Every structure is written in structure tokens, then in C-alpha cells.
């Protein structure tokens, strides 16, 4: 039997949104590891590579990537901290859990906006 699902009509609870974005941000961060280590390597290699890195920091592509990465890191840290608190039974009842899930989603975006403000 064919099933038609209108994805726009599925109501996603805020906790589910936090959960899926915890995953997405985690995958983004994992993909970012080699780039992060490349930056660390160039920063330490030689004065020339250090200077070259500072020029790279000034490019639009790098700034855009840095903002996305900052969002992923902030969201992942906030959602992870919430996870740890809930393991300790803090805020695991539904109304508090909904409120804190909202705080994580908004907090991650707020940090990304701060980063954008600082970089652009």
C-alpha cells in the first residue's frame, strides 16, 4: 500500500529537533577534524606557514566555514551538556526538558551569530 507522508505536516517536538541537530552537528564536527588539524599543523610548522594561515583566515570562504563550525560546536556542546545533566536526573521532566531543548537550539544559533559578528 502506498503511503504518502507530507513532511511539512509532521509535528516535530522541540526535543526531537535538538536530538537530530546534535547528530548533524556531530557529523559536521567529525568532518571538520582534518581541517582543524591542518590549521594546527600550519600554525606551528614555520613563520611562513603561520603568516599564510593568517591570510587564509581573512578569506570569505574560511569565515563562512568558521561560522558553520562554530554553530556546530556550540550546539553540540550545549546539547551534550544537557544530556549529561539529564543523566544526572536534572531537568528530565517534560516541561523542563522542552524548555532546555529550546535553550540549546537558540543558544547554538546565538553563539553562531556572535561569531558572525566578530568575524564579518
Amino acid at each position, binding site marked *: 500500500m502506498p503511503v504518502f507522508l507530507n513532511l511539512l505536516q509532521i509535528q516535530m517536538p522541540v526535543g526531537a529537533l535538538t536530538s537530530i541537530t546534535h547528530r548533524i552537528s556531530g557529523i559536521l564536527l567529525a568532518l571538520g577534524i582534518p581541517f582543524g588539524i591542518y590549521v594546527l599543523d600550519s600554525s606551528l610548522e614555520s*613563520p611562513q606557514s603561520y603568516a599564510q594561515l593568517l591570510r587564509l583566515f581573512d578569506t570569505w570562504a574560511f569565515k563562512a566555514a568558521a561560522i558553520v563550525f562554530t554553530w556546530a560546536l556550540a550546539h553540540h*556542546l550545549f546539547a551534550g551538556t544537557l544530556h*549529561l545533566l539529564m543523566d544526572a536526573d536534572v531537568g528530565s521532566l517534560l516541561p523542563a526538558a522542552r524548555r532546555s531543548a529550546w535553550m540549546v537550539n537558540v543558544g547554538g544559533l546565538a553563539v553562531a551569530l556572535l561569531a558572525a559578528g566578530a568575524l564579518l
Partner: protein
Amino acid sequence: MRKVVSGLRAWLVQRVSAVYMLFFIVFLLSHFIIDPPKSYLAWQGWMLSPGISIATSVFFAALLVHAWVGVRDVIMDYVHPIAVRILVLVSLALGLIAIGVWVIRILLLRHA
């Protein structure tokens, strides 16, 4: 039983590595805000000092096991054919090991 124990271990590894990384990131961020490095020599001297390079190496060790547990969970949720799953998991493991070797070369084997 074995399965339960190994699942519990992954859960614990994920949390212990997360807490270390959280403290390290807060420390690193504070350092950059309070006393940002002003030159190549200042940055290199700080980063390759024994305490910081060891703490940073531990951070990357935590990061790599955290990424292993996390990405492995995602792969097992979405990649079902067993041969493909094994191939993807082996590639992930090799990639993370290669990154670990790279970090050791950067932080611990460099002649500063």
C-alpha cells in the same frame, strides 16, 4: 551480556571524553580571550610547552574516541547491508588512526 557491557562502556567513554573536551575548550577559549598569542614564536612556545602539548594531545585522543563512538552509532543506524557497514566502519577507523598519527607528529615529535 557481553553486548550490554560493551554498550555501557561506549556510553561511559562518550561521557568521560565529552567532559574532558568541555573543560579543555573552556580553558583554550579563556586563554585566547585573556592572553591571545601575538606572534608565531609566542604561539609556538605556548603550544609546544610540555604541559599544553600534553593536555592538547589528551584532547585529541578524547576527540578521536568520541568521534569513533559517535559516528559509529550513526553508521549503524543508517547503513544496514553488513558488507557495506563493515567497509564504512573500517574506513572510519583507518581515517581516525591516520589523524591520530598526524597529531602525534605535530605535537609530540616536532623539534621545537
